[in-house]
């Protein structure tokens, strides 16, 4: 009764084949990541030093460090967050908790999806037109950060909306039945249980903002500016643009050939650190699941 038939054997062969095939696809997927990391660590690793991180670039970027670019990226990301998080979270709360299901809401949702699909160079040109010229912010951290904010808004909105909708509807109904208003329900029950999910989305946004080049290159980031910015009206260097400039425009002498790898390694390190925080956060969250 339990003897293998020809059909059993054939099914098992197919099963083994498919499994191997999918495993190979998965391995293929991580090869580029491994190669990039290996090259960066081998070539960029020796470049890293305290001096590299904390001094100004010298000799037309063929020597010295990346300190202004590092600080510039922190400025850009921080100001972009200040703009996009309140806006995105408020919009997501409206869409998830208040908006009726009508054509207007559907149009807004469609617009958000489309906003996420707009190429970053188009965002850059929008930023030039809107923030640099129309609002007369000039090429500045403010203009560049606002451009980044517009670009990453869909990420914040979608992440926030999803974590709001992960809160069971029964909790809301229980509150409404007690005579709570929608806002009381959101503040007391919905938000406290989705705030960690929202923060995870924000951290993911940070890592994306830090790496973008196109949206900042015409709006506020400078290729070579070995001073620290003093306010949002100043231009600044940025890690991503610094890497782009080094890799494409400066004919680097031999002794500086590995500098771009060092910059890339620091940038990737920043992003990976952010992602690690976000993953750690999620694991901590799962540990204290509330329902």
């Amino acid at each position: 009764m339990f003897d293998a038939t020809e059909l059993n054997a054939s099914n098992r062969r197919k099963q083994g084949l498919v499994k191997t095939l999918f495993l190979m696809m998965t391995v293929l997927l991580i090869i580029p990541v491994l190669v990039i990391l290996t090259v960066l660590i081998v070539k960029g690793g020796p470049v890293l030093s305290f001096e590299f991180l904390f001094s100004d670039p010298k000799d037309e970027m063929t020597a010295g460090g990346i300190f202004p670019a590092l600080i510039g990226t922190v400025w850009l990301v921080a100001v972009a967050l200040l703009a996009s998080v309140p806006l995105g979270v408020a919009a997501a709360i409206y869409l998830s908790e208040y908006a009726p299901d009508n054509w207007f809401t559907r149009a807004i949702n469609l617009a958000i999806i489309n906003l996420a699909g707009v190429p970053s160079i188009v965002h850059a040109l929008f930023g030039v037109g809107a923030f640099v010229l129309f609002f007369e912010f000039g090429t500045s951290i403010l203009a560049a950060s606002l451009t980044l904010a517009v670009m990453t808004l869909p990420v914040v909105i979608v992440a926030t909306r999803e974590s709001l909708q992960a809160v069971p509807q029964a909790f809301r109904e229980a509150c409404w039945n007690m005579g709570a208003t929608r806002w009381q329900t959101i503040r007391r029950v919905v938000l406290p249980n989705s705030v960690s999910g929202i923060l995870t989305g924000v951290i993911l946004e940070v890592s994306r903002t830090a790496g973008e080049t196109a949206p900042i290159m015409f709006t506020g980031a400078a290729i070579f500016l070995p001073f620290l910015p003093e306010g949002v009206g100043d231009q600044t260097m940025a890690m991503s643009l610094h890497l782009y400039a080094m890799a494409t425009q400066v004919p680097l002498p031999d002794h500086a050939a590995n500098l771009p790898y060092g910059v890339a390694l620091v940038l990737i390190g920043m992003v990976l650190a952010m992602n690690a925080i976000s993953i750690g956060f999620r694991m901590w969250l799962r540990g204290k699941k509330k329902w």
Partner: protein
Amino acid sequence: MVDARSPATVGSDVKVAARDLTIRYGSHVALKDVTLDIRENEIFGIIGPANSGKTSFLRALNRMDAFTTGMSVEGDIEFAGHNIRTIKNLYALRKRIGVVFPLPVGLPLSIYDNVALSPRLSGTKKREDLDVIVERCLRRAALWDEVKDRLKSLGSLLSGGQQQRLTIARALSQDPDLLLLDEFSIAVDPVTTMRIEDVLKELKQEVTIVLVTNLVQQARRLADRTAFFLMSECVEIAETEAFFDGRVKDQRSIDYVEGRFG
């Protein structure tokens, strides 16, 4: 609190009076032309098979139609002498009506905060006052002894039966005039069910209770009068015992309580 007094068409001991109540979800009719009175301090049972309009009736009583797209209600409902179809302050109305759902809803707050939520929403801030309310409501819901040493732990992690008693304690913390119970024992073990039923019998002194149940025997144990809903219609309203000794008029009512139904 509520406005628009309607003419005194109902007796003074009537708590809720529904007149020609029809409830629709889009084009689907959930309840058709129901007229019934619920008296002060009685337990009013509603029995009937699934999809007969029982839950819709409860939802209409606390105006959940205002929070539900597609739900529309026609006819009038008087509650404590006010027409709830025309009152503007729905929040005040809902505060006076406690609701217990089929599945227990322990909010993801501490046990203490679950019960203190409604008093806090209506402005009670002092810790001593809240302490008193929390203890009183948990005692009345027969849960105090089991949780008094861990009021800070999460209400949503209690067992199903405990959560349902927590839900009842929360409903009581609203100090309601009317308590709506929607098949409360569906996710509760028989022992806890009996404890909750004892609680309800006591609560009847202070609160009017509407008990929707698909357990005919539960209606028999608890309800003073019972309505039988079938396919969106109210077939019969009678003293509960009349359903069991054959004094009800409609043959369908007798068939249903005797379990001889299609």
